[in-house]
């Protein structure tokens, strides 16, 4: 895993400042969706676990306190993109 993460708010910071929640689910039912929506199961439990690029929710707890979407490669350990998750969500990317 990358040793340094370019936080969009704080700049290059050591990975120890962050906590990782896990991969961003492929989809998540809308708020208020019926409880028998089959998407709930996959949103909570299923992850594709790809070899290579993946997107994860990271929390910069020892920095700006923002949730981030880190796109990284679990093979090469390269970090491709780090974005503010709320900004992404407001732009319609809510998973």
């Amino acid at each position, binding site marked *: *895993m*990358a*040793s*340094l993460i370019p936080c969009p708010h704080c700049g*290059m910071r*050591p990975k120890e400042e962050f*906590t990782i*929640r896990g991969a961003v689910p492929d989809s998540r*039912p809308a*708020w*208020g*969706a019926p*409880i*028998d*929506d089959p998407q*709930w199961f996959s*949103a*909570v*439990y299923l992850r594709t676990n790809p070899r290579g690029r993946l997107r994860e*929710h990271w*929390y910069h*707890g020892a920095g700006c*306190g*923002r*949730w981030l979407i880190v796109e990284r490669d679990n093979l090469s*350990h390269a*970090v491709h993109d780090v974005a503010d*998750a*709320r900004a992404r*969500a*407001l732009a319609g990317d*809510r998973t």
Partner: protein
Amino acid sequence: MSSRRLPEGGLIDRSRPIDFTFDGHKLSGFAGDTLASALLANGRRLVGRSFKYHRPRGILTAGSAEPNALVTVGTGGRREPNVRATMAELHEGMVAESQNRWPSLRFDLGAVNQLFSPFLAAGFYYKTFMWPAALWEKLYEPLIRRAAGLGKATYERDPDRFEKRWAHCDLLVIGAGPAGLTAALTAARSGARVVLVDEQSLPGGSLLGERESVDDMAASDWARQVADELDTMPNVRVLPRTTAFGWYDSNLFGALERVQKHRAEIDAALPVERLWRIAARRAVLASGAEERPLVFGGNDRPGIMIAGAMRTYLNRYAVAPGRKVAIFTNGDAAYRTARDLQARGVEVAAVIDSRPAVSGASAATRTIHGGLVTRSFGGQGLKGIEILGNGKYERIGVDALAMSGGYTPIINLACQRGGRPIWNEGLQAFLAPENEGLAMAGSAAGIYGLADCLRDGIGKAQAALGELGIKPARFDPPKTTEEAGTGFKALWHVGESRAKAFVDFQNDVTVSDLGLAVREGYGHIEHAKRYTTTGMATDQGKLSNLNAIGIVAEARGKSPAEIGTTTFRPFYTPVSFGAIVGANREKHFQPVRKSPLHGWAEANGAVFVEAGLWYRSAWFPRNGETHWRQSADREAANVRTNVGVCDVSTLGKIEIFGPDAPEFLNRVYCNGFAKLPVGKARYGLMLREDGFIYDDGTTSRLAEDHYFMTTTTAQAAGVMTHLEFCAQILWPELDVRFASVTDQWAQMAIAGPKSRAVIAELVDRDISNDAFPFLAAADLTVLGTLPARLFGISFSGELAYELAVPARSGKRVADAVMEAGAKHGIMPYGTEALSVLRIEKGHVTHSEINGTVVPDDLGMGRMASQAKDYVGRAMLGREALRAENRMQLVGLRPAGADRLIRAGSHLLERHAPPSTENDQGHITSACYSPALGHHIALALLRRGHARHGEEIRVWDGLRGEEFPVLVCEPAFVDPRNEKLHA
């Protein structure tokens, strides 16, 4: 023993003699010596015993790859085993001891192992300690453990400090040899931020041990001049005595600086070692190359040394290796050793060159081309060698032998991130692959000539600067004198040898061990390594790995390219635990959190308990109480009859603001919060997305758009993170903000039938039951002017309040509470009594909310709203979470005579034998109840809600306890909540 010190020369300071001891003998050296050079100067050739066979061993190298000369240095808590004598700088009063010998270095009983060596070959442990299995633990493990390890670590506390630091640079240069120095100087003069690390005490690397000149001055003087220039530049940090040990993602390097290991007196203001994390935009690895030993019979006898190391001892430390020296080589480099020895008046008896014909290198002495050294003679030091030349064996007397088996470029760091080394047929060595951000320079890149190395450093630095967009300064390579050639022909081992020929000196691995490994099917290099342990000692095979690969390749009839290498991993050289731990030891192991009321509790005689990072007051002994139960029982009973005060400041506290705060809270709690009026508090249950309970607590509405949330102590940070996740990712359209204020408020619970009378004296408003009922919440002032918050909240089940005041006023207000309560019999109570009170009332904590329970399991099923969506709602609807045979919260009381009930015990039906199938649940919390006069417990019991009144059994297999209990409802005290509204 006669001195081997030459009358003049060397980079030692003869005006500063240094006294030290080795195995109790008083010896002396000079400033600038290493322990190894000082031992050699004192004529000490035998310095250690080998690991397996306890063979006598001497000093093989002059650097960090040393496999033999491992000693224990220091006394008391500073005693450090397995120090390489070649890296230990001599200091006044140094106490050094040899290792792995008993009773003494010269007479070592362990050497008897050599007689059994036919049985101690590779795979010995695997074959011998297989059966019978009954002996594994009793006999084999103690035996193996006793034989394992070299020096013995101290059990005493390390008195010294260690620290960690970050550094950032444009260019990190690793190694201050010829290539490293020109690389660093090029980048420094170009204005780049440069860090230069080098493991030696002086800059120069190989230049320190050679007689070449650079820019018309002695090479070591040139190195000093460059280092001096670097030292004056503000954009450069030079770190001597610093080993880069690891290369990590994001071009991050780990390096260990030995700040004070070379000092006689330790300055307590400084660390002894400093662990650097260096974030480098680009790096140049100019780590040099190791000269390999030659593998022939008896190649480990003290007096046999690497040829380049012999030059270093001669030129840098002014130590003659012997009176009469022979040189065994397969390349041109060792001819320099012959030349330098003769220049210092040491007799060179012969150069034995394994190559039939040589061009370019010659020695002014007898030279045997196509010759081999087949064995060595002598007891604990070399007396002679056997030579095979022109088909004839010959024996000559020498007391030192230099050997040169070709160079191994030091590529370790460049291969630590998964890159595989690439075999170079011309160099007969592995080179590093192309890496992003890290360039190889000098002999680490397989460039062996001095002028070429100086030029390569400049080129690699300029290329790196170019990638960074920094304009490189012009820098002409320094002039050098003509030097020896670099011709060489691989000789992996001398097949004509009969005696033990060592490949890995430290782990006593011989050529025949490797042959055995191949014959027994362990020919893959990773298997051969583990089967024979070659390369697995503390030196990690720096000298031996390539020879081992060559020997395995020959045995399998393949090329070293097909054999490949084993895997390079950090650390390059051993790193002390102290440096890795840094400042995080003892009381600094983790932060200590103290409540704002800590001092108040201390003044009231509290006994503290560690709860995570917090120190919480657990009980307050009074009147000669000697057992915590005496105090806790008194404190709990006093709350039920009078009034008590408890520090609850450790609860997580979060301010929530924003017009959408009501909607937000309504979504994160499973119970309704949308209609909570201003001035009211409410208990809330927070679920995880999978439907299980995450945390509980109270949230109070202080204004239309302002709430104050409390969480459990344990989940304070987790809940904050969860709220941020919900607000930022799930519902970014909601206008809501949070601030963690756990440390800003001192909060105390004042509980008991007389609590209202106590509070009424302190606050500025009416708190009668009508004006301020249970679950009321208000901003108010206490002690006349102090802003405070009062909540009608009870964890004990009694009439109770929680009072929050700014942290700095906590002690003052707590003292005032005690004073106001004096006439009502107020007593402080700690977490033990707090726990008793909440168990009596059937309130849950994380003992019950253990990640497997849903609201209905705790009897709170009706709290989960049917009228709204909330986090966890969908998954909570799953069939299994609504099944009637779930583990459900119940109370337990003794069915017969009272007895201690222990949390963690399992529950069984009355006559069912203990088994996993029959398990009915377990006890989550238990205590003695002063209110009831007997022990009680809370438990998660299968179908518990329907089993009130049933007799079941408690089963504790660890203690062999088994007894009947009665299932009851979890609230033992005031189940109808009448006290809360008194």
